[in-house]
Structures are given as structure tokens and as C-alpha cells.
């Protein structure tokens, strides 16, 4: 095969066995790769109602068809499992060198089941797969783990994907990291920890062949040029932290656990401030001409020496959402999350919730090991972050994610727990972005800006962001299908502005790489198929319409400040938009799949 390796590696950690499944061209065309592959593999491999932290859950790593080629930003992979946070399908994309190393080792995807008897790591060395002892890495953070694995294998060039202490402790917001990138969302790190799997090292020496090298090079060179032009200018200069001041200005910057939508300290945590004071170098992922990754360092003060990459979502969650306007503290908090292996968005949201609980008297110093939790008190926040990773004191409660923690604490704290389906929300106040509110409500993995681009029409001025109507369903469907195709081709979304006709151009590129015929309409249809399969997975797990909801605060507490003052998404508005979305999807009014739709999309459902 071209582009693909045509092989999936199955690993049974309990029995220390592996097997290979050959992929057909039909399978590849129907599910593309990345999120498409991982969705199909999860659906076929997990029995319904499996506890996410039990042996029966599987962990999938799936590359896209462009991984290992010169295609810009094509080296991303999906990491997927039944999410311990949501109980529904969970997936997250990471990227860079580990991805193409896996492809070069000969696999399009790896499916891991069972549980190792003791802490272990896998070494995938082309066709040889070794199960290795990782007891010496117990409790180590991610950078140390990577180093230890490389040292033990005796090869600096192997690529390592691993969990930190949070994953080992099955903190439900734990992530999996490789090459300074993370598959951050939905708690796959906890699933990896539950399998006693500390790391996966990969060494690949094979060559990836493409169907039409000359034409592919020609088109890719054009894309490289575009990807270094105006369409990506903002990412290269400030990175995504450019959003801070803009969102603050339009009152869409969630602040102090979404109690406000503007932040009085916004200038001090802006991308502009970051560039002037903290950026030390700008890095790109493997095969990426954009280079958005702004590495920041603290030069002096209590957090001197802290260094990590800062992007907008991390910045919002651990900055304004926790009331923190001291940039060095945000860098330190992000560094700790990256080191322990915890999703920065979820961590910031759950800390914001904990502080509000404390300020309302729902938890006291007795619960917090004496910590006086206040918005903006970065020292206390740093302590809390350690406690979550270690599951120490109240950290054990917070390690459950904000949905489960608020259900356990009760006392009305559920009303200000900021999540959808159990996944903590990213940094866009959707009370004044109503198409985005719909897109996030229906997203299969929960509250997420990456699985639905429905905020683009709100922010792009295509619709009135403050009102809801029945046109939003179709818009949300289109942006969701588009995001799904990008995630299945496993491309970075920052490339999206570089296409004039996305489906036409990427379907042609798909054919140039794989040799498999694909029309623009077939590619779009594939996105729809995968979204429907995700929905089928969730329905099998007990999904009902009430799961497509929004945080109580988004529906009951109007934005109190800024230009969006008074905005809220009412139940009536949400229902109107949900009806229009289900209709546009061809689903029933209850949001269930129809036999006709299943047949039309050729979805083979067990």
C-alpha cells in the first residue's frame, strides 16, 4: 500500500502477546486514519458498559494517511479510549516525531488491551515488540521517563510516548505526552495508567512510499509556501495566546470559574506580554512549516527557571479562570501539568471550581490541608496542583474531574461545575457564542473546541453570535464534519486557512499519497460517517438527549460584565438548536440514529 502501512498492531498486556491485522483499502477509504481509525477500532474492540479503568477498555494510537510523508503538519496521531471522565468515546490528538516513527516501524495504528502485571513499557522496534519492566520509572515525571527509556534502550533517537505520576495514579484528567506534545483531553493517561503501561518507545526504519511522488511534491511545496504566509501569521508571531486580548475585548474570556467574561489582568497575561517577557524560542512539530509552539521561560522571581510551551487554552485555564494575572505562575503551573502529565484545560477548570467552592464555604481549610484557596493566589494553586497529581487530601476529589467531583461534593456545587458530558470546557465563553454552544453541547467527546469548529461562524461574523435560531444545526453539522475529516487525515487545524477548497484539495492529496480514489464528496461523507459512528458508540453506552446539554452556569447565570453583559443560553434556545442539529444529521428528535442513516453511510454496527 501507499501512504498506509496496511497493518494494525494489537498488543495484549495481560498475556504479553501481539498480533497483526491487515487493513484493506476499503477500510482505509471508509475511515481514513487518525480519529476515524480510532473510532472504528474502539467501537469494534470495547464491550458496551466496560468500566474505562478495567482490563476491557482499550487504548488506541492511530496515525493518519499523511504521517511519514512530506505533507505539512501530517504527523499527528489520535489517542483514544473509552473516557474515564465522560463514560463516552474519548479521543485526543498529539503529534510530531513519535507519529512518523510509528508509521516507519510498520504500523498505522496500535490497539492495546489488558493490563501488565507490573509497571511496564513497550518497545516497538520495527517488527519486534518487547514488553519491558518499568519499575525503575515508577513515579517519574514525563521528561524523566523519556530520558530513562532512551537510556535503557541505549538509543537517543527512539521516540517515546509516556505518562507521568498523574497517569500512574489514575487521575482522570491525566494525559499522554510525546516530543513535548500531548494527547491532552479525555483522560487517556488514566487509562494507560490503569494498564500499568508507563511508556511506548518506538524505533522505525522502514520507508513510507507514496503513490505519486512528483505531483505530491509539487502540491506540498505550494502548501508549504501558503503555510508560511498570511494565513498562519498569527500563529507564528504570538501563537494562540493572541486570543487573550481579543476574547477579553468581546467579553468571551472565561474568568474566575466563568463568573466573569472579562479579566481585569488580561494585559498581563496577553500574548503580547508573553512575547515581550517570556518567549525564548519558537518550535515546530515534525514536518510543520508554521511553528506555533512558543516556548516560555521565567527568568527571575519565585518561579525562576520554569520553562514550557504556552498556548491559549492552557493560559486561559490556569490564568484568568483561576484569577491569576502573574505570568510566571502560569508558566510554572503549565510546566507542572506537563511534567505530571495532566490536561491543562481540565486542571485549570477544576482548580477554578475548587476555589469557588472554598470562597462559598462549601469546602474549608480542613478539606484543603490548611490551604487558603483564593482566586489569584498562585502559591495555593501550585500546591493544589501537586495534590491533584499525588491524589493527596482534596486532590483525591479533584482528580475525578469536575463533573464527578461536584457530584460527590454536592451542596449545589454542580451548578458551577464547568463541563459538558464530564469534559471541562476550553476558553471561550459560549454564552455569547451561541453556535459554539450548540457545537460543544453535541460533541461526542464532551465540551471541546477541537471537535466542532462551531465558534468560527460566531467569531467570523457569519451569524449573530448573541442569538439562537434553527439555522445553527446545519452550520454545526458542517463544522463538525470538517473537523472530523481534519482529525482523521490527522492534520493540524492551523493549516485550515491554507486551502481554497478544502475537500477538493485534500481528497486529491489523499489520492496522490495513497493511490486510493477519493472524491471531495466521498471525503466529506467520511467525516459524517465517523461522527455517526461516534454517536453509535455513545448510544451503546447509554447516551440520551439530556447528555447534549450545557453547564448550569451557561444556562442560568448571564454574563455579568463587558460588551456581552446579559448573555445566556436559555433552555428554549438550546432545545431549538438541538432540534435543528438532529434534523440536519438525519437523526430522530431524540437524537438517535435511524436505520436509513446507518444504511446510507454503510456503517456496520454490531
Amino acid at each position, binding site marked *: 500500500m501507499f501512504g498506509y502501512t496496511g497493518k494494525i498492531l494489537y498488543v495484549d498486556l495481560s498475556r504479553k502477546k501481539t498480533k497483526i491485522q491487515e487493513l484493506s483499502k476499503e477500510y482505509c477509504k471508509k475511515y481514513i486514519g487518525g480519529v476515524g481509525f480510532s473510532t472504528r477500532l474502539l467501537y469494534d474492540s470495547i464491550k458496551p458498559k466496560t468500566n474505562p479503568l478495567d482490563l476491557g477498555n482499550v487504548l488506541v494510537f492511530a496515525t493518519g494517511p499523511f504521517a511519514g510523508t512530506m505533507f505539512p503538519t501530517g504527523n499527528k496521531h489520535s489517542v483514544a479510549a473509552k473516557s474515564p471522565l465522560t463514560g463516552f468515546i474519548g479521543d485526543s490528538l498529539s503529534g510530531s516525531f513519535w507519529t512518523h516513527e510509528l508509521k516507519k516501524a510498520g504500523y498505522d495504528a496500535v490497539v492495546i488491551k489488558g493490563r501488565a502485571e507490573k509497571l511496564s513499557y513497550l518497545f516497538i522496534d520495527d517488527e519486534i515488540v518487547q514488553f519491558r519492566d518499568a519499575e525503575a520509572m515508577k513515579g517519574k515525571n514525563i521528561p524523566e521517563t523519556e530520558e530513562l527509556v532512551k537510556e535503557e534502550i541505549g538509543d537517543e533517537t527512539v521516540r517515546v510516548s509516556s505518562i507521568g505520576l498523574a497517569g500512574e495514579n489514575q487521575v482522570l484528567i491525566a494525559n499522554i505526552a510525546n516530543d513535548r506534545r500531548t494527547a491532552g483531553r479525555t483522560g487517556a493517561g488514566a487509562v494507560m495508567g490503569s494498564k500499568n503501561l508507563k511508556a511506548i518507545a518506538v524505533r522505525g526504519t522502514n520507508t513510507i512510499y507514496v503513490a505519486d511522488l512528483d505531483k505530491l511534491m509539487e502540491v506540498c511545496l505550494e502548501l508549504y509556501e501558503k503555510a508560511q*504566509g*498570511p494565513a498562519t501569521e498569527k500563529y507564528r*508571531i504570538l501563537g494562540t495566546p*493572541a486570543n487573550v486580548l481579543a476574547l477579553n*475585548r468581546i467579553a468571551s474570556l472565561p474568568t474566575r470559574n466563568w463568573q466573569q467574561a472579562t479579566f481585569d489582568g488580561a494585559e498581563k497575561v496577553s500574548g503580547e506580554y508573553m512575547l515581550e517577557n517570556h518567549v525564548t524560542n519558537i518550535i515546530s512539530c515534525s514536518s510543520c512549516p508554521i511553528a506555533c509552539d512558543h516556548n516560555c521561560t521565567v527568568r527571575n522571581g519565585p518561579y525562576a527557571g520554569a520553562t514550557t510551551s504556552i498556548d491559549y487554552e492552557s493560559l486561559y485555564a490556569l490564568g484568568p479562570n483561576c484569577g491569576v494575572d502573574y505570568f510566571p505562575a502560569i508558566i510554572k503551573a503549565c510546566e507542572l501539568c506537563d511534567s505530571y502529565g495532566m490536561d491543562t484545560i481540565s486542571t485549570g477548570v477544576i482548580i477554578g471550581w475548587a476555589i469557588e467552592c472554598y470562597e462559598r464555604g462549601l469546602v474549608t481549610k480542613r478539606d484543603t490541608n490548611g490551604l487558603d484557596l483564593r482566586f489569584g493566589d498562585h502559591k495555593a494553586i501550585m500546591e493544589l496542583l501537586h495534590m491533584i497529581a499525588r491524589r493527596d487530601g482534596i486532590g483525591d476529589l479533584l482528580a475525578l474531574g469536575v463533573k464527578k467531583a461536584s457530584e460527590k461534593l454536592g451542596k449545589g456545587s454542580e451548578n458551577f461545575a464547568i463541563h459538558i458530558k464530564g469534559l471541562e470546557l476550553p476558553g471561550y465563553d459560549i454564552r455569547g457564542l451561541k453556535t459554539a454552544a450548540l457545537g460543544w453541547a453535541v460533541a461526542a467527546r464532551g465540551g471541546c473546541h477541537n471537535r466542532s*469548529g462551531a465558534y468560527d461562524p460566531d467569531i467570523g461574523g457569519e451569524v449573530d453570535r448573541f442569538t439562537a435560531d434553527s439555522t445553527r444545526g446545519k452550520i454545526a453539522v458542517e463544522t463538525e464534519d470538517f473537523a472530523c475529516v481534519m482529525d482523521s487525515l490527522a492534520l493540524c487545524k492551523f493549516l485550515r486557512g491554507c486551502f481554497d477548497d478544502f475537500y477538493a484539495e485534500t481528497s486529491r492529496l489523499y489520492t496522490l499519497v495513497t493511490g486510493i480514489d477519493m472524491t471531495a464528496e466521498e471525503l466529506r461523507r467520511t467525516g459524517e460517517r465517523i461522527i455517526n459512528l461516534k454517536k453509535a458508540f455513545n448510544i451503546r453506552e447509554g447516551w440520551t438527549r439530556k447528555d447534549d446539554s450545557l453547564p448550569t452556569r451557561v444556562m442560568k447565570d448571564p454574563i455579568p460584565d463587558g460588551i456581552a453583559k446579559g448573555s445566556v443560553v436559555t433552555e428554549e434556545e438550546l432545545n431549538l438548536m438541538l432540534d435543528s442539529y438532529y434534523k440536519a444529521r438525519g437523526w430522530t428528535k431524540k437524537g438517535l440514529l435511524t436505520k436509513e442513516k446507518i444504511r446510507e453511510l454503510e456503517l456496520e454496527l454490531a
Partner: protein
Amino acid sequence: MMQMKVILELYSAARYLTNIKEIEIDLKEEACLRDLVVYLINKFPQLLGRVIHTKTHKIVETFKFNINGKHMVNDLDFKLHEGDRILLFPIDGGG
């Protein structure tokens, strides 16, 4: 000819390239966003090819105009009014 004043706020790359946070601009009465773009090209040619397309003189896709913090506007024929605050910024996420 009657004139009106509007205020332009620049963010992100637009601010970085011009080193200006906001600027008061005199435009002809009943001017539209296109007139503002013409002003920008003349005053800040460094924005060409980076925030404003060199050939079409449209704002690049990742940047938006916003009027008074409320609504984003794509239509360059959008009429401006005395005292309007016009924001030029990019917002999007993903990755």
C-alpha cells in the same frame, strides 16, 4: 466634505507589526470598512502580505473586524459611524 472620527484597536500581529494599540482616524462621512483598509495600507504598508492580502486588499482569513466589541463584520462595504470602535484581531483555536 464632512468628516468623522473612528477609533481602530489593533491586536496580535497587527499590533506587533505597527507597534500601535489604538489609533484615532479621520474618515469621510459615510465611510465604510473598505476606506479603513485603504487608510491602513497607506499608513502601515507593513501589514500588506501579513494581515492584508497584497493582491486583493482583503483582510486575511484569520483576522476579523469587529464593531464596538459586539459583532464581527466581513463585509468591507459595511458603513461606519462617528465614534465607532473598530477592532482588528484574530480569534481561533485548534491545533
